[in-house]
């Protein structure tokens, strides 16, 4: 943490849980559809078309505002933000702004983060709704090197919720903790599925004490945000240390080169010519509506974590990990309902299940495991039907493949070999075939592990290594 550093974030959460765009009824799925197929006169900005607001998005934004403790306005005003860019078919973006005759959907509030030391509150400045511009592709990557650009208007009009913080963040670590918590919240509220490409984009404002601020625009991953912040702090420090001054400017983060660069595009800051969109009459939000939305809200992740500690006697750490994703928390609770023993469920999910998911980029969309399959896996282990080793082996197939653990075990003969006779025969075979290893083991008891390993291999992991060790010790005369 560094007292001299001030960081503010502008987070654009894509409301990718709602099926249609912000101001028309086109599908908001721009990821899998062919370019320019989910379009209509409205999201193409054709002359004469008019926007019709998506009420579901407004409700979600109010939900997020309530969760962040922000003050919801009583009249929602949409404004036009003007700039010329081909990703903006109307020449303006429908957005929200603070100013005469204008107000964002909510202001104020904050989110508490566990800093280094005392928990700290990162204050929220405002929260607004806007539409995503179209997606531009440059055939040679760089706009300057490309003779033309390709525009996909499928993304034009996809709903975004913009959350702007006060410059309360002090380090890249705090930025990560804050973003993790905000994304977890958005996930629980059913606003943003963080697994989808482009689920969020962040503009980072970084300044040193008594210096101008630098904005790094449009970073799409938390890792890159951390790196960009670290890079900027070092860069700005270097300039200040050399007696220089920081220029107020807009930069972008290049993840390949691991550095920020001054943006080529001119910034028309303060010249967006904001004014209330005359096509969209202000929408009244009564206290009753806010109350009704609040009453219908799902449990907030931090309340859920407290409940896990209380009801299931989990550690704070375990509770926090389990609620980090709504899908994980649901899997946990539903598995506990079937299986009982929250400790064991939590342990499996946190240590083993998450390992599998994280090896696939932490993408919960790939998870096919059900509470039933997780519960079965745990029971199979309890009853000694399968070994821990087998459980770990088949876990990936249960989690990602969606297979039923009982079926895997039955089909592939993975049951634990409990018959002593069978194990003794295998042990004898191994002893016969490895006279040198037996000699070693007699001299050095630790070397016995090699022999145990050989037996395990023959059983394909279906035995308890402890038991095998005992048998071998007995057979080679180390024990009676």
């Amino acid at each position, binding site marked *: 943490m560094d007292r001299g550093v001030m960081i503010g974030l502008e987070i654009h959460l894509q409301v990718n849980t709602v099926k249609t765009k912000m101001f028309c009824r086109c599908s908001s799925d721009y990821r899998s559809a062919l370019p320019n197929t989910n379009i209509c006169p409205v999201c193409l900005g054709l002359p004469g*078309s008019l926007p019709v607001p998506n009420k579901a998005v407004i409700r979600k934004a109010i939900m997020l505002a309530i969760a962040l403790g922000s003050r919801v306005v009583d009249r929602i005003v949409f404004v036009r933000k003007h700039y010329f860019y081909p990703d903006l078919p109307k020449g303006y973006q429908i957005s929200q702004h603070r100013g005469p005759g204008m107000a964002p959907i909510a202001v104020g509030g904050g989110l508490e983060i566990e800093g280094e030391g005392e928990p700290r509150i990162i204050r929220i400045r405002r929260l607004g709704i806007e539409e995503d511009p179209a997606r531009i592709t440059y055939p040679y990557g760089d706009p300057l090197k490309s003779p033309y650009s390709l525009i996909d208007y499928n993304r034009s009009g996809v709903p975004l919720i913009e959350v702007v913080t006060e410059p309360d963040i002090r380090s890249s670590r705090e930025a990560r903790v804050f973003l993790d918590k905000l994304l977890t919240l958005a996930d629980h509220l059913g606003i943003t599925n963080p697994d989808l490409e482009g689920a969020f984009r962040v503009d980072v404002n970084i300044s040193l004490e008594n210096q101008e601020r630098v904005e790094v625009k449009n970073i799409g991953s938390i890792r890159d945000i951390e790196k960009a912040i670290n890079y900027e702090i070092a860069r700005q420090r270097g300039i200040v240390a050399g007696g220089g001054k920081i220029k107020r400017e807009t930069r972008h983060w290049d993840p390949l080169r691991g550095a920020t660069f001054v943006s080529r595009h001119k910034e028309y800051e303060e010249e967006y010519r904001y004014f209330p969109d005359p096509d969209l009459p202000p929408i009244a939000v009564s206290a009753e509506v806010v109350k009704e939305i609040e009453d219908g809200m799902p449990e907030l992740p931090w309340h859920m974590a407290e409940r896990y500690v209380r009801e299931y006697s989990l550690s704070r750490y375990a509770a926090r990990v389990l609620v980090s994703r709504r899908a994980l928390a649901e899997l946990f609770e539903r598995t506990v309902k079937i299986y009982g023993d929250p400790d064991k469920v939590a342990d499996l999910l946190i240590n083993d299940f998450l390992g599998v998911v994280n090896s696939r980029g932490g993408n919960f969309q790939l998870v096919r495991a059900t509470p039933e399959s997780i519960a079965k896996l745990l029971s199979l282990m309890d009853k000694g039907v399968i070994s821990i080793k087998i459980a770990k082996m088949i876990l990936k197939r249960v989690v990602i493949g969606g297979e039923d653990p009982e079926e895997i075990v039955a089909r592939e003969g993975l049951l634990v070999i409990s018959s002593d006779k069978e194990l003794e025969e295998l042990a004898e075979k191994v002893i016969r075939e490895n006279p040198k290893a037996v000699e070693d083991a007699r001299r050095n008891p630790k070397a016995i592990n090699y022999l145990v390993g050989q037996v395990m291999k023959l059983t394909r992991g279906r035995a308890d290594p402890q038991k095998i060790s005992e048998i071998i010790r007995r057979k080679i005369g180390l024990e009676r």
Partner: protein
Amino acid sequence: MPVHDVIEIIRGDRRALEEYIYSIYDRIERLEKTLRGFITIRKREDVLEEAVRANMEEKPLAGIPIAVKDNISTMGIRTTCASAILENYVPPYDATVIARLRSAGAVIIGKTNMDEFAMGSTTETSHFGPSRNPWDPDRVPGGSSGGSAVVVSSYMAPAALGSDTGGSVRNPAAYTATFGYKPTYGVLSRYGLIAYASSLDQIGLITRDALDTALLLEHMAGEDPMDPTSVDLKVSGLYRRLRDIGAGRSHLSARLVIVREMWEGVEENVAREVMRAIDRLSSSGYTFEETSIPEIRYALPAYYIIAFAEASSNLARYGIPIYGLKINPENMGWEDYYSEVRSRGFGREVKRRIMLGSYILSAGYYEQYYIKALKVRRVLRDRLLPILRRGYIASPTMPIKPPRLGEAIEDPLRLYAMDIETVVPNLIGAPAVNIPAGFVDSLPVGLQLIGAPMSDQDLLEVSRSVEDIIGISNTTPKTG
């Protein structure tokens, strides 16, 4: 012949329908060279085919041809806004009013000339050249819906749609001795109307008399889910009610309000002629009162500030290469491409309004101009609504006779001053009509009546009665 008479003749009679459409095309053949009412005229065969089909399917409007101002989107028919920038634009969708008229059995005969993007009061800013007044081809027909008024007054179409942002329907109606109606804001959906100034724009009608407007309105009005600013005005039975008024049948007597400031600066002989018409009304039982509303003097500047500001925003979309000029964007930077398209595509008056509007909305001036203009608008509404609940505000529609071509357009301030009478209803969202009132130097002069918002039905009934008393509606201009 007015629409309500034509329909009676052509209904269920294919021969009569064909004869009627032939006669319309004969007139177009004869007059259009001089008058230039249309930008696009559809092929006679196509119109005939659609008309016959609508007639055979017993649609209520029986295949009646309608002319449409070229800023209302018509699927498959070029819609240019009289601008080079949209010279080749063919909308892929119908405006809501067009879809409704088509399904009621009306057929679009062509798209009418107008001031570029409806910015003008004379139809001289059209990229396709000016239209001419059928009463004197050396004079302008008014604007911006000049073409619609020309084709109706010269019988090239029985009725036409226009649009009215600050008088653009009533002005040309006054100059061509036709009936012009601007509804309460929201009564006719704006979906598909190419925006000039969204908070002021309304689609309107230019017809031979109020009865025709009532007939067509019944098939066009009603809330539209595609336009959040639309309102639900119930108009069923309106035509029948109007039919029973006048022509020796019952007469209404309403109260007319003379607002002194609206008669200031009106050309003397125009004022005298309109007052003569009002005198005839009062001798037929109409009462009237005189009042003063000094704030009316701020209406024109407030109107132009709001209109320019909104226009600069609405026209920001013309630049991306999905419509517009055939300029190859390859190897051009975006800014160069935008500049090129917009410099070449927009005419002088449009550029003037975009520049002024951009200035008005820029940081620092937004409050000084735009917010102040909105305040004027509120004050006017507060002052006028109580008066409109008592009676109809009566004034000359236009303060001067139709200017000669080139006379008004040279001086923008003089051009803007022509709208002094007509901008008030747009600012307060009220309905207003032009009723032919008399002639000065053989040129038509119109009476404007303004009603309270949502009182459109009453206003049209009164109009019918006023027409009957004044008795000059349906006169034929000398070029006809």
